């Protein structure tokens, strides 16, 4: 009974906690008034937004998720040096291209994360996803080998995401 009560009134415990922490961080204080207001907001906002929630696959392995985040941060650093070289270098050597990448993962959240990762890393920007969510269209700043690029995206970013979400 306690369980159903909790689920009814605190539908998103993790998000409530994040909201509470963010509120205190934004105000940079631990005053009792702000703690009270933050707690009220952290309890009230999830109650208001719970009807808008769409079901998403759960994160299976938190360790893998952390490792994925670190890997993406490292890739962002490397990617920036690469793009910087291309920007400074001669324009006539640039070989931009549109590529369609077949998707194996399902669900809106994993695809969104994959698309954002692609946008942030080596010379690629995701532009559009097909309606059946089977293809992702990306723009590449400098394409040397299409098959190799697709294979790299699939093995480096898609496979870990597949393990994280287990789909």
């Amino acid at each position, binding site marked *: 009974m306690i369980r159903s009560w909790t689920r009814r009134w605190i539908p998103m415990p993790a998000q409530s906690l994040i909201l509470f922490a*963010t509120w205190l*961080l*934004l105000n*940079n204080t631990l005053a009792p008034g702000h703690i009270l207001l933050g707690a009220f907001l952290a309890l009230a906002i999830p109650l208001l937004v719970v009807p808008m929630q769409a079901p998403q696959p759960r994160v299976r392995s938190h360790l893998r998720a952390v490792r994925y985040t670190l890997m993406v941060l490292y890739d*962002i*650093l490397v*990617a*920036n040096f690469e*793009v*910087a070289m291309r*920007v*400074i270098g001669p*324009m006539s050597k*640039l*070989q*931009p*291209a*549109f*590529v*369609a990448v077949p998707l194996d993962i399902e669900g809106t959240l994993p695809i969104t994360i994959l*698309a*954002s*990762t692609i*946008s*942030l890393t080596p*010379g690629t*920007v*995701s*532009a*559009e*996803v*097909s*309606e*059946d969510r*089977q*293809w992702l*269209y990306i*723009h590449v*700043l400098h*394409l040397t080998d*299409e098959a190799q690029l697709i294979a790299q995206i699939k093995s480096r970013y898609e496979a870990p995401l597949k393990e994280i979400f287990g789909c």
Partner: protein
Amino acid sequence: MTPVIELIICAFLLLGGIFVLLGSFGLLRLPDFYTRLHTPTKATTLGLAGLLIGSMIYFFVAEQRLVVHELLITLFLLITAPVSAHMLAKAALHHKVRALKRTQGQNLFTAARKRQPPPADN
């Protein structure tokens, strides 16, 4: 403040400034819209992250307090940069903004605009 920490802060600030400059330089120099999309999303975000980390170290050392707003701003920019890039690319595709002539795979344009799978011969 010791000279070493000052040096570290300066390095972060300079790195950030250079990347911001590169982002805008790419925006000005690259030949068509789709290639221009690349530098502001990547270089500018990283440049600002460098600036923010530098100022976070400064306030942590100089005033002995943790200012976490920088972290929040960095996170916010990291989350929103790919979203705005994606929306801009989408808007450009639907507005039929022309790509550079030598861009490969331009036959995907129509399919991408209509959100269809790519044509079979590809």
